[in-house]
């Protein structure tokens, strides 16, 4: 059972994110980077499947700058077997289409039964790379799964997907792409022996030329979409504190304000 996990390094959720003064880029200065939280669920699920089946490999595939190595090592320390790092300036700054194209090209050359991604990266919040990757590899994809069960013969999976107010249960022949969301599992922390072992695990850098792609097909140049500008959302100013001497008065005043001023009820 060979499982691939696409993993992205993203700014920590606590980080303060601002556009550059000209609003054309994001300012990443002084920011701490971590594994995308949804990708952690993906790594964990892959490890659990490999442990249950008792054989196979979990390979991390990451597209990102040099600093992403740190997050790759963390995934290896969690227990992944090896990693491929699409590490070339040409890959960077791409939209979902360009990123999925590079990932697909790298994965095409590998052996896989299951591909896991996070349902979205919490930086650009594109929420589409996994599905586009599936299309490029001509594989079905299922978005936002909260349960994964491998069949006895390991040829298919029964998965549960979150929908409005419920779940959808699907049977999917493998190989296929699944994107993970909260509820799938509780990711483990890397153990100390795991961290030691991770240092010796294979981490293969891949350059543009290795994939047989040209510059116009990946990264910023290969993108279909373009961000015209970044902006900060309108600030929600603090509103008014509803006055009243008693809880009764406060409740009555609020009801009145919602009705007459805000006109929302």
């Amino acid at each position, binding site marked *: 059972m060979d499982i691939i996990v696409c993993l992205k390094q993203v700014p920590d959720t606590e980080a303060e994110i601002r556009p550059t003064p000209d609003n054309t880029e994001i300012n990443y200065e002084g920011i701490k980077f971590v594994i995308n939280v949804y990708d952690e669920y993906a790594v964990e699920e892959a490890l659990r499947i490999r442990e249950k089946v008792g054989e196979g490999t979990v390979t991390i595939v990451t597209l990102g700058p040099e600093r992403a190595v740190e997050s790759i090592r963390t995934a290896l320390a969690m227990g992944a077997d090896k990693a491929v790092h699409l590490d070339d300036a040409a890959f960077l700054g791409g939209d979902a289409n360009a990123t999925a194209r590079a990932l697909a090209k790298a994965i095409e050359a590998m052996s896989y039964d299951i591909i896991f991604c996070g349902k*979205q990266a919490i*930086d650009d919040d594109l929420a589409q790379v996994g599905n586009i990757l599936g299309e490029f590899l001509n594989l079905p994809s299922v978005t936002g799964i909260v349960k994964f069960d491998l069949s006895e013969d390991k040829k298919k999976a029964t998965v549960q997907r979150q929908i*409005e*107010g419920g779940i959808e249960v699907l049977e999917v022949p493998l190989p296929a792409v699944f994107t993970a969301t909260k509820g799938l599992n509780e990711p483990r922390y890397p153990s100390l022996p795991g961290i030691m072992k991770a240092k010796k695990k294979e981490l293969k850098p891949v350059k543009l030329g290795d994939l047989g792609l040209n510059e116009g097909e990946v990264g910023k140049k290969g993108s279909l979409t373009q961000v015209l500008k970044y*902006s900060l959302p309108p600030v929600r100013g603090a509103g008014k504190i509803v006055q009243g001497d008693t809880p009764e008065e406060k*409740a009555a005043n609020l009801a009145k304000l919602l009705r007459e001023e805000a006109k929302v009820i």
Partner: protein
Amino acid sequence: MSAEVWVFAEQRDGKLRKVTLELLGKGRELADKLGVKLAALLLGSGVSDLAGELTSYADNVYQWDDPLLERYNSDIYLQLISHLAGKETPQILLAGATFLAKDLFPRLAGRLDTGIAVDCLNLAIGDDNLLVATKPLFGGKVLADVVCRKGRPQIALVRPNTFPPPSLSGASKGEVHKLEVSIDPDQVKLEVLEVVRAAKERLDLTEAEIIVTGGRGLKEPKNFRLLEDLADVLGATVGATRAVVDSGWRPQDDQVGKSGKTVSPKLYFAIGLSGAIHHIMGMDTSNVVVAINKDPRAPIFQYADYGIVGDLFEVLPLLTEELKRELAKG
């Protein structure tokens, strides 16, 4: 090249989703600006009544009506829509940012080699008649205006409650095109075994107009009854913070916030919750926010249009009664 503006008419249990109407309103505005027709895509089983309803809003209604389409299956929907898109070459395709659409349309974008923007908060026509989609990044800390330079249609999935539903003009009388449901069975790999929905009558958080969310200040799971009572009066949906969900007080389905659902209701009650950034990221596009908390320094008051500093156990039942009275006035 017909270059229409398309709206995916999502339906469930024989009813159009509210976001579909919202997008038909916005879609009409975009289509008028571009001088093209507005079309609706309708897939399902026994949906001809809905097609009729859509003709009040759209110039063309593309209808696929077949028992095969009773349940959503992305492999099947994808084949039908990508085939028609190849033939009709629409320039824009809009859908609600629902669980269905977020599964289907990224796949369509990959298949048609075009761009898609998810969770959009605004749409406009910009230079070169391109669709400018405004979408949140970093959980809403930053917004981006995105255009799709190459690839058609330009696909945008818009959060429910972003645009007002259109008023019926009555003038537009669209034409229904009944399309053949021909599927290549070899390309249908997924099988939907079951759709399980909790037997709750309330709207999902992502589409609710009013949400009543509780945090740890509720002290015990059973106290969510107070929120349920308020929600009953308002026809609202009850939400919960991460702390509450992680404690097992409420199901994951109810979580509002970064690792839960992102919501944009017209009215949001934040009750007994402090307003951690993770939570704010999931609700700060709400139209009007009300906070009730006994701690006057709780960060949630920085985001609230109306705040009550007080004991929720006292205030909430009173507020429920007051609102019941207000609503009874009609």
